[in-house]
């Protein structure tokens, strides 16, 4: 009699999800799936709207990384305007994009995953959260809060609003940077850079305690995709797409975003509202690739800021050769990226023309189609729009970071379930490991469903026709019922 374990909702991730683990008669894991349960239909609901509204509208896909959507959307709109935006505008967009990378990574690492790393995957589920972290490791909690606050504050200084700022617009940004705001950002940088450096030291030893997880947390061969700049270095705003395989062989580089459709396909999974992206030349499912911090550091050959470059060199040592394959190292990659972002913001703020008031290009819709790509905290994000001659939206296709990772996340859930879930003994810590691997990807499910309720953990005994024969329930206190 095959049985099914359902984890619903998956918590401490950003979105609505459910995991089902299918057991065979012997109680061994036969299959595991990660279901996204929300769908809002942004690709349709934007139809008929003026394209100038798209950046702010698409920002509402996600409250965690609205700036990524603002940036990718504005870049698609720039392509429709057929303009090259002023250099200062591009630099300011870079700063706000990096500020968001900082706050989002801080949220993922300190608020959502650190409770697992510091309190332990076997610890009490009632206190295994950011509030428990505040009690047990107040310093770490404070550091996380401060880092996220810095990122959010930079966003607010530039965009006048922490979440969903309307400042990134087609053709550039809506107002230049004021000198006093620039001074305020520069003044805060040394302190927050210190926090990240401290965290990197502290967690190096913590990561060492998770050897088993490193081997089993989604450690499998896959392709990796991300933007790189002209020098092949780490890049989040402009650049071309690069795809490498698990050995580090370059399959394709220099892909201009406008030609994405030749390389990226999207498959519908009947059991999820999230489509699975795959690398078209290889096909489905072998064209599975990963995006995000781990993938970006895997595809990049250099990092242009000094402190992050040192960490990058250490990261590259994690595997004897080739890309880092374990999804557990997303956490480490995230910290390195925070450090990079802080250094990069410093560089950008020191550009000679950063205070220029030339920050916006105006034009009519000169092209009827536009594609914009940016690296969101969670990975490559793509907006593709078609408009009519008056600039009203006719079509949108959005490929979201988490959709890029969908196949890999499902593979990881299966791998962890096989290793840790034993159908005969159901332990909360095991199941939390299954959730924790999802947390490593930091999926932004509100994004991916551009399209979290709670039920107890249920194990259902299902007959082949799907009728539930028996059910075990574990309530929120961890008690078995």
């Amino acid at each position, binding site marked *: 009699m095959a049985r099914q374990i359902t984890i619903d909702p998956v918590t401490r991730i950003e979105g609505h999800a459910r995991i089902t683990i299918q057991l065979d008669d012997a109680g061994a894991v036969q299959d595991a799936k990660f279901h996204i349960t929300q769908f809002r239909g942004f690709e349709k609901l934007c139809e008929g709207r*003026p394209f100038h509204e798209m950046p702010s*509208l698409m920002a509402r896909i996600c409250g965690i990384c609205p700036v990524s959507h603002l940036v990718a959307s504005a870049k698609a709109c720039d392509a429709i305007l057929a303009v090259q935006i002023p250099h200062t505008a591009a630099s300011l967009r870079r700063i706000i994009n990096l500020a968001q990378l900082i706050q989002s990574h801080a949220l993922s690492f300190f608020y959502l995953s650190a409770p697992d790393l510091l309190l332990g995957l076997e610890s009490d589920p009632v206190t295994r959260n950011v509030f428990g972290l505040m009690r047990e490791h107040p310093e770490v909690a404070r550091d996380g809060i401060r880092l996220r606050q810095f990122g959010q504050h930079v966003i607010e200084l530039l965009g006048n609003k922490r979440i*969903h700022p*309307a400042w990134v617009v*087609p053709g550039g940004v*809506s107002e230049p940077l004021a000198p006093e705001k620039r001074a305020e950002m520069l003044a805060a940088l040394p302190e927050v850079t210190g926090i990240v450096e401290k965290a990197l030291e502290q967690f190096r030893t913590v990561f060492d305690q998770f050897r088993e997880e490193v081997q089993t947390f989604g450690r499998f061969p896959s392709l990796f995709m991300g933007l790189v700049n002209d020098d092949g270095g780490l890049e989040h705003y402009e650049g071309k797409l690069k795809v490498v395989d698990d050995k580090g062989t370059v399959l394709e580089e220099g892909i201009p975003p406008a030609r994405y459709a030749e390389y990226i396909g999207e498959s519908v999974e009947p059991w999820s509202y999230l489509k699975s992206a795959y690398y078209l030349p290889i096909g489905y499912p072998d064209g599975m690739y990963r995006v995000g911090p781990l993938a970006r550091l895997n595809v990049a050959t250099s990092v242009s800021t000094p402190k992050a470059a040192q960490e990058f060199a250490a990261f590259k040592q994690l595997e004897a050769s080739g890309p880092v394959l374990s999804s557990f190292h997303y956490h480490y990659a995230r910290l390195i990226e925070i450090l990079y972002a802080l250094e990069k913001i410093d560089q950008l703020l020191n550009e000679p023309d950063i205070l220029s008031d030339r920050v916006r290009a105006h034009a*009519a819709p000169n092209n009827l189609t536009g594609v914009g790509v940016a690296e969101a905290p969670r990975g490559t994000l793509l907006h593709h729009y078609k408009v009519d001659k*008056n600039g009203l939206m006719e079509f949108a296709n959005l490929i979201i970071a988490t959709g890029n990772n969908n196949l890999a996340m499902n593979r990881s859930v299966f791998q962890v379930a096989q290793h840790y879930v034993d159908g005969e003994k159901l332990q909360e810590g095991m199941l939390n490991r299954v959730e924790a691997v999802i947390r490593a990807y930091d999926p932004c499910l509100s994004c991916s469903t551009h399209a979290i309720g709670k039920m107890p953990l249920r194990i259902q005994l299902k007959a082949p026709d799907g009728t539930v024969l028996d059910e075990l329930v574990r309530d929120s206190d961890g008690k078995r019922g």
Partner: protein
Amino acid sequence: MTVPPARIRTLTIDGKDVGAREDETILDVARENGIWIPTLCQMTGLSNIGACRLCLVEVAGSTKLQPACVTRVEEGMQVTAHSDRLAEYRKMIVELLFAEGNHICSVCVTNGHCDLQWLAQRLEIDHIRFPYLYGKRSVDASHERFVLDHNRCVLCTRCVRVCDEVEGAHTWDIMGRGTNARVITDLAQPWGESTSCTSCGKCVSVCPTGALFEQGKAVTEMVKHRELLPMLLTMRGRQR
């Protein structure tokens, strides 16, 4: 020939003794005396039509509520401009406007600069008690400089009046009835094909919401210049 001076009338508004010329409306007098009465379709410089009903007031001795913008003062009138009953009606009117259109404030070009949004806040409306209609409404972006978004239109007809009374083009009008009523340009042609429109932009500056805005404006960027019309009329020397 000299115009005889207008006679003076005395009345009370919310218990306050006020004086007015006989040709003034209750709204005029209230404003002169710093008494706020909410309005939406009314705009100084355009004719008053009493369409939105937000300025309804109670007049002693009458069971009917009177729109303050088109009701002339009378000697000894006792006007109540603020009561629980009026507050409730005004709230309902604004809520119905929200329920009828598709006012997605968060992603609107006039977010933060919109009369309807401001009224909702001023009248302490924190949610809409009527079921939203979510009707299918279109956007006309065919004009080179301006956009018409029917989703945000509250049918106040300020655009119709300013185009007729001030610009003299009468490009704008209304067609249809009830929830199907909508503003049109010429004979319901796309605005960009209108032969009467002078592209002066007066309609855009008087529109209270994000229904009329300039091409290329992103969310929150459309600020309406309400001071333009009174200034223009003053310069023309025929202030109404």
